């Protein structure tokens, strides 16, 4: 997997039939509250489920199905019945103007939303057919299966580069196999190995911003997540670091399902296969998914006028 050319399989998921997803697909592709937004564009995704367990690294990417997600901070509702399928082996981009709830939606997907005081949630998120909000999975188990990379790079300042990579395993109480192997593999996958292989004992904060962000990606990968959520991972980075992170994202899409929030339209076009457009139509209302579908369609021929306005830069 390490040397694979990302272009070879990217964007061409193998069609397969999976009974489980076929069942849930009908629920997921209909956004009940957005009656005006056609859902036809998402039809092809129903057929594109994942193939069997072919990922080299052990963890199998899973698709994530969010159904009727609503969210509140205290009394204020910020999301209203958002449903979205995030397919395995694909990069799904969440776009939309500031304050439309896309980051909140992302944080609901690995139960980080509830760490904020007064935050409430409704709806269901299924990972491999298990509701992550049910009692079947503990909250820590959910988060180690669904990793997250934040807007600002946040390596642990008290740890070396090497310990930062291993920190997830130690923090989640997982058994650590061959440490050197894990460190090298994760840093390679995050595109950082060559830059830091001679200074693994240095502090995580001694790296540049872009390197720190890739270190955070490596740290998330070490836990072998099936899904990786990224909340505007490049917004604090310069163009060169952004490019490296984007390349990393594309390369990772083979063995991890990726959901990325971005304000950058070009970035959404460059890295994502699927795209969902969030919008708050009225300040008093909650954010909704206006339209979702393949990125190419969303940017070239969206069904909704508001999507067209947004992706062509007329507002937001």
């Amino acid at each position, binding site marked *: 997997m390490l040397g694979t050319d990302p272009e070879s399989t990217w964007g061409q998921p193998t069609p397969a039939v999976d009974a489980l997803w076929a069942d849930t697909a009908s629920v997921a592709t209909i956004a009940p509250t957005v009656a005006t937004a056609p859902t036809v564009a998402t039809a092809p995704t129903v057929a594109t489920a994942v193939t069997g367990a072919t990922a080299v690294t052990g963890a199998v990417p899973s698709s994530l199905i969010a159904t009727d997600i609503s969210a509140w901070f205290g009394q204020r509702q910020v999301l209203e019945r958002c449903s979205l399928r995030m397919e395995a082996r694909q990069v799904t981009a969440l776009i939309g103007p500031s304050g439309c709830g896309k980051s909140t939606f992302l944080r609901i997907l*690995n139960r*980080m939303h509830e*760490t904020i005081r007064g935050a409430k949630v409704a709806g269901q998120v299924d990972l491999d057919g298990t509701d992550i909000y049910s009692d079947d999975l503990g909250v*820590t*188990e*959910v*988060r*180690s*299966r669904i*990793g*997250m990379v*934040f807007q*600002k790079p*946040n390596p*642990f*300042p*008290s*740890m*070396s580069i090497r310990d930062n990579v291993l*920190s*997830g395993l*130690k*923090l*989640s*109480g997982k058994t650590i196999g061959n440490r050197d192997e894990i460190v090298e593999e994760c840093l390679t996958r995050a595109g950082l190995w060559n830059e830091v292989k001679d200074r693994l*004992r*240095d*502090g*995580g*904060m*001694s790296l540049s911003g872009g390197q720190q962000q890739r270190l*955070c990606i490596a*740290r*998330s990968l070490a*836990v072998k997540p099936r899904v990786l959520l990224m909340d505007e991972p490049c917004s604090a980075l310069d163009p060169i670091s952004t490019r490296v992170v984007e390349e990393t994202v594309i390369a990772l899409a083979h063995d991890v399902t990726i959901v990325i929030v971005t304000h950058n339209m070009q970035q959404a076009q460059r890295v994502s296969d699927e795209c969902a457009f969030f919008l708050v139509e009225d300040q008093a209302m909650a954010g909704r998914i206006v339209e979702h579908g393949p990125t190419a369609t969303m940017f070239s021929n969206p069904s909704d006028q508001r999507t067209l306005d947004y992706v062509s830069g007329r507002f937001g």
Partner: protein
Amino acid sequence: MTLLELDREVVDPVDQPDDDGRPAPQRQRKVGGLTMEEKAEYAIAFAAGIHLVVLLRLLLDWDDLLGSSVLGLIVFVLTHFLIVRERSSAEVAVDKSVTAVMWTVGLIVVAVLAWMVVFVAIKGFPRLRWSFIVEDLSTVGPLDPGGGAFHAIIGTAQQVGISTVCVIPIAIMTAVYLHEVRGRMATVVRFVVDALAGLPSIVAGLVVITIFPGFAGYKASMALIVLAIPIVTRGAEEVLRTVPDSLREASLALGAPQWRVVLRVVLPTAQAGLVTVGLLAVARMVGETAPVLLTAGGTNITNKNPLDGQQSSLSLYIYELIRQPNEATVERAWSGAFLLLLIVLVIFVAARVALARSERRLGRR
């Protein structure tokens, strides 16, 4: 000066390439620091202040050192402001004056501290020798030379040692409860801790000895624990507040339960601050006298058992000896004071060095 001009000025005639064709090292420009003019301004203002003090002394025979120094200082600041105001705008003058005031205040604080250390050293150092550290007062009569503070050192070490071992975990766990767990009782706990912080130390000693009658070293520890817990708890809470929430989020998102987040990320990140808070508490406990007097009683004999019988401590040793009428005893008290100062200083420096080393290893700063 525009940027362009700056660039041109850097290229100096001496920067000609040498024989190999490599450019000679560039001359670095001096930035920051004081210009000759500014130095002169300070010197003149300082002279004005000094002269006034001397004049007052000569003419009015005013020999109150503290009063005339304060007056001289005010004259210094005013003169400095007027000199600067003469040549530049009010903005610049105020800026320079405030800088001067800040420097002066800083220097005064450092000078007072240094003077105190030097004073204690002058009084205490001459009689401080090895025998002072290894001998006690059990066989020394009031007028005899010799003898030392071994029993007091042992007492301080045991009492403060026991307290520290108890206080640090309790206080840090309380701080974690207050700031990390944010449990339902947090408000109540914080109120109690704040109330405890206002407890006079002698009352702590009084309560302990009333509830548990009879002198013993560990009872002094109990009083010290009561006094130190609020200091360390509130200090540690402030330190935990400096740990960015982004680190907690990152840990949680990796699938960590909260206790591991605290143990592996929050506390290690806050390490430097926590050590400082702990040291401040140790220094405070080492200096406490009243509660030790009430609970450990004080003695001239070495008692190595903190669980039973009277014990002394360095601060108590100083308190008891300095009130004696004979010179040899008073000198011992000063030696004890100097030793106490040294111990606190050594602990501080050692911890700082250790921390700086671990921080440098990680390339922080």
